[in-house]
């Protein structure tokens, strides 16, 4: 069934390829049905999941694949992958719905939808893969559709942004595959992730550090962590709305997910050595992203920079190597997916209506399109971590966990990080409210006084309401998510703690 969830979209893409280009309605309908069907499979996975044993891989399939290098078709999901997989499925459906009459120039829904479906297979596959080569294939499969989405349907500077995105992430991938190969040779000639987790600790410390470094580059660029983030604002600014939404909501999570799924459990010792540096870059990212936001004049670029700051909180949670921190990180990923995805949707709709995203030209959205203005305000507050909305549960426990990081990590260092991250929340309030003030409050600028501005229309409602509800529901009932992640995260941190205990014993 998991296999179907992964490959149904690409089958759908093949199906779309057979439909003539002119039959747009049919193309859209098929794409919608395929993504919906995938989401239904996702739902059945969700309901069939054994929450009492969320730390165990479920729905596993394990076949021989590329015998010569002992790479297997091994997929399965636990409590960490499940929410992200569902997020990916839901976001894709909503993006298809939103696209209904929002196809950016040069139109061509056929190609656009095919790319979106291919993208979904890549994303779902990455979250399900339990074999490094398989993971890598899916991880890279995501690049191409996004490259074309930005490069063909993007803004004026799309060529530059698309190539930058592609090169940058591919550079990281190169180092990542390097590390994968090293793991293969050093970790018992296997690419199987669970097997490697069982054996990875045996690799010599120095080698672990190097391998982790390669993985770090691959994942950190994808996240993106400061100072590897500069591809992100360009990609977001130029990407079409749907591209931005998928990029923010799902693609960035591939990086953070990689840390939790691969880098940390396989190489816990190296993770411990790297953690202070990851934490440092994370908190720099929090402040730096916020400063970047304050300097922006373009709404979409501002939201893009805010992603850098938010992913900083996620990475801080991960760097603590604690159950609290990693739970917060997974929650933060989902919350950021919902909230920032929603913000990009709104930014896209604003651009469509006003023809600009310049903050200085906008104003009085609450007067012309009150519902959209309300939604923007709602998301801004969710994004700044207001309790009762989803963002809070990614942010607060991450800050909390930094007070007492995993054994062996310097408390003083991480407490300093905690303080910086907490100060980052003030900055977050600063730039988000500033944006809200510029866009939603005030009066309409003279140039748009006569413009006929539609409030939210039907496809937008259908695409947005699930996200808004998700933000609210996860904010009030965080355990809906934590009950999935907690057990699985404990498995990861137990591995880290075991090594910590062994290391301490050896040190004595």
């Amino acid at each position, binding site marked *: 069934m998991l296999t179907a969830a992964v490959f149904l979209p690409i089958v759908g893409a093949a199906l779309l390829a057979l439909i003539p280009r002119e039959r747009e309605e049919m193309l859209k309908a098929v794409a919608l049905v395929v993504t919906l069907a995938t989401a239904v499979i996702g739902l059945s996975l969700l309901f069939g999941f054994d929450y009492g044993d969320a730390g165990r891989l479920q729905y596993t399939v394990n076949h021989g694949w590329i015998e010569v290098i002992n790479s297997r078709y091994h997929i399965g999901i636990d409590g960490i992958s499940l929410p992200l997989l569902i997020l990916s499925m839901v976001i894709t459906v909503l993006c298809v719905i939103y696209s209904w009459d929002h196809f950016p120039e040069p139109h061509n829904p056929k190609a656009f939808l095919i790319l979106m479906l291919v993208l979904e297979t890549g994303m779902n596959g990455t979250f399900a893969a339990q074999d490094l080569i398989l993971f890598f294939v899916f991880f890279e499969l995501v690049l191409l559709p996004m*490259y074309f989405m930005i490069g063909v349907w993007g803004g004026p500077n799309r*060529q530059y942004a698309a*190539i*930058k995105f592609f*090169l*940058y992430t*591919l550079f990281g*991938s*190169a180092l990542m*595959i*390097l590390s994968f*190969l*090293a793991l293969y*040779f*050093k970790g018992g000639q296997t690419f199987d992730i669970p097997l490697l987790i069982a054996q990875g600790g045996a690799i010599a410390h*120095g*080698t672990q550090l*190097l391998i982790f470094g390669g993985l770090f580059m691959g994942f950190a660029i994808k996240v993106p962590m400061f*100072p590897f983030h*500069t591809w992100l604002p360009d990609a977001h600014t130029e990407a079409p709305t749907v591209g931005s939404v998928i990029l923010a909501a799902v693609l960035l999570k591939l990086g953070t997910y990689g840390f939790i799924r691969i880098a940390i459990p396989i190489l816990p010792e190296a993770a411990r050595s790297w953690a202070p540096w990851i934490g440092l870059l994370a908190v720099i990212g929090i402040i*730096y992203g916020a*400063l*970047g*936001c*304050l*300097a*922006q004049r373009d709404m979409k670029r501002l939201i893009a920079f805010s992603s850098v700051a938010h992913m900083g909180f996620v990475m801080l949670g991960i760097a603590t190597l*604690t*159950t*609290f921190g990693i*739970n917060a990180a997974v929650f933060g990923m989902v919350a950021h997916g919902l909230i920032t995805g929603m913000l990009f949707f709104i930014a896209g709709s604003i651009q469509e209506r006003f023809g600009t995203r310049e903050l200085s030209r906008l104003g009085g959205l609450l*007067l012309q399109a009150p519902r959209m203005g309300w939604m923007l305000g709602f998301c801004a*507050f969710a994004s700044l971590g*207001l*309790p*009762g909305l989803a963002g809070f549960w990614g942010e*607060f426990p991450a*800050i*909390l966990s930094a*007070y007492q990081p995993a054994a062996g990590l310097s408390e003083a260092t991480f407490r300093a990080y*905690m*303080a910086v991250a*907490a100060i980052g*929340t*003030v*900055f977050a*309030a*600063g730039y988000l*409210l*500033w944006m809200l*003030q510029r866009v*939603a*409050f*005030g009066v309409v600028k003279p140039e748009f006084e006569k413009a006929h501005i539609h409030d939210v229309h039907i496809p937008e409602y259908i695409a947005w309401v699930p996200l808004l509800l998700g933000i609210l529901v996860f904010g009030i009932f*965080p*355990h809906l998510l*934590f*009950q999935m992640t907690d057990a699985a*995260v*404990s498995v990861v941190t137990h591995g880290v703690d075991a090594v910590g205990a062994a290391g301490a014993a050896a040190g004595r």
Partner: protein
Amino acid sequence: MLDKAWLIPLIPALSFVVILFFGKRLPKKGAEVGITALSLSFVIALLGALEWTGKEVPREAVTAHHEWFELGGVHFGAGMHIDGLAVMMLVVVTFISLMVHIYSTGYMHGDRRYTYFFAALSLFTAAMLLLVVADNTLQLMIGWELVGLCSFMLIGHWWEEGVNSGAAIKAFITTRTGDVGLMTGIITLFFAAGRNFDIEHLNHAALTGEIGHGTLLVGACLLFLGVMGKSAQFPLHVWLPDAMAGPTPVSALIHAATMVVAGVYLVARLYGVFFTGFSIEVGGTNLVAIIGAMTVIIAALLAFVQDDVKKVLAYSTVSQLGYMIMALGVGAWTAAVFHLFTHAFFKALLFLGSGSLIHAVHSNNMSEMGGMRKFMPTTYKTFMIGSVALAGIFPLAGFWSKDEILLGAHENGFPLMLIVGLLGAFMTAAYMTRACYLIFAGEYRGHGHPHESPPSMAWPLRILAVPAVLAGLLNAPGIELFHKWVEFEIPGVPAFLPEHAFNPALAVGSLAIALLGIALASAYYFRGALNGLSQRVPILQTGHRVLVNKYYLDDLFLAIIRGIQYPIAKAAYWVNQNVLDGVINGVGKGAQAGAKVVYEVIDQRIIDGAVNGAGLSAEEGGSILRHLQTGRVQQYAALLFGAAAVLAMGLVVLT
């Protein structure tokens, strides 16, 4: 009834939802929902209070805890802890909020976002009540932040004007700056108390020495930063006068029962932590007492130089909050809570009264008022009652609570705080005299046709005037019920500092000082007014007579007021506007400038430049990028794969 106390925050929360979704379709546009909800909550709170006072001593707190979820072995829960303090707060918050709701039907009549306003009022109240009933610090923080959100919505209610949304943002950001401390403080105490958010446990652990003193001091200092932001303590008070941009009923709610008292409530609620952390029992001085004392004086000075009636009241609130914090700092817990209680009534009364004035003359400025006594008899009478109560004149509410604070400072060994308290009493009386003079005495200086406000606004004033007069008697010598009802008790831990018997000499002294303030101020302000001033305002007759009888003092103090107080007040205001505000603005501007530099120079040129440079050199160097641009992505990928494989081999060989 007390075991149903969770209904008290829940009802306004539901009211918020109902008003938000159905308010516009209802005959009264949602106001009726809010008023009904608050009436219900108030009745439940009142019944709860009756039950509480009827309980046998020692009264045990009514608690309930619902486990919310478990994460990493830690239990997160929502619950309530209803003791005397919480009961008192529930009554005050629901009562003031109900009055504000009723008043708003008149004041906000015809407003473009009338329904929305009532929805926000309900949410505001619900958030504050959630904070009040909280039995753990996490829930308290959630309520605390939601209060902040609502204040943002309400201060910026008329967001069409940039000034208003700017004030809303300033309030939110300034309080959130303090919240950095709150958040980290809660985290520190969470770990110190063995991964526990429970408030009673925290107090217990702090008082029994389970938490080390160093950690406790750090935690208390951090929490106090949050308190300074929320309760507008010097120097984080700068947001509060700006918050007057919101509609006046909101100001009343913010200043009397919600938002700003949240900080005081937090200190009172976690008093075990503050008491031990700051070693309050030693006497002398400590951070809490000092910040409170500074706030008393600095804010009171500022109140003298305002023309906007709401700003006078705003600085007055800051100053009175300083009293409460100072009281907590000197170990006078009951006095602080009692002052919170009495202050809520007369300050709500004063704010609603000022709203009534503003409603009548369409201006906030006292220079455009004058002679309002003739036009608005109800507003006049009730405003005077509020002013006298605030000034601390026997036997009105403010007298008793202020007296207890002074007594606490005196008996617990804080002589400096006693002096500050007396000085504050003097200044409070003086600036309220000035305000009343400018508003009610003389001739009308505006251009409109002032009229008394409609009954929906006048009645809340009349009702609030009753507790403004009587609330203080609740703890008057011989009665002392308040102290018995609202006692801070932790089972198994002895009381903090003993309650002190009423001290007549001190009471008379503070009363004399307050009267002196009135006398000197009236002498000063009325000197310019040529005739019949003592006939205009009865309360000033007394002050005037005192002044005439002791003329030699008059000259002296007039010289003081004119020669010293004004320059100091003006200088303080200048410092406030230019230095403190300048710092805030400077930080904002600096952050923006810094952001610009970081963005333009570091981000765009250096980091991005490196990336672009790498790309460019690759392009110049030959082929890779051009291949990519011409679409040969796969080739490039293959190349990278190959290179990676080679490097991997190298790595394996080397290690």
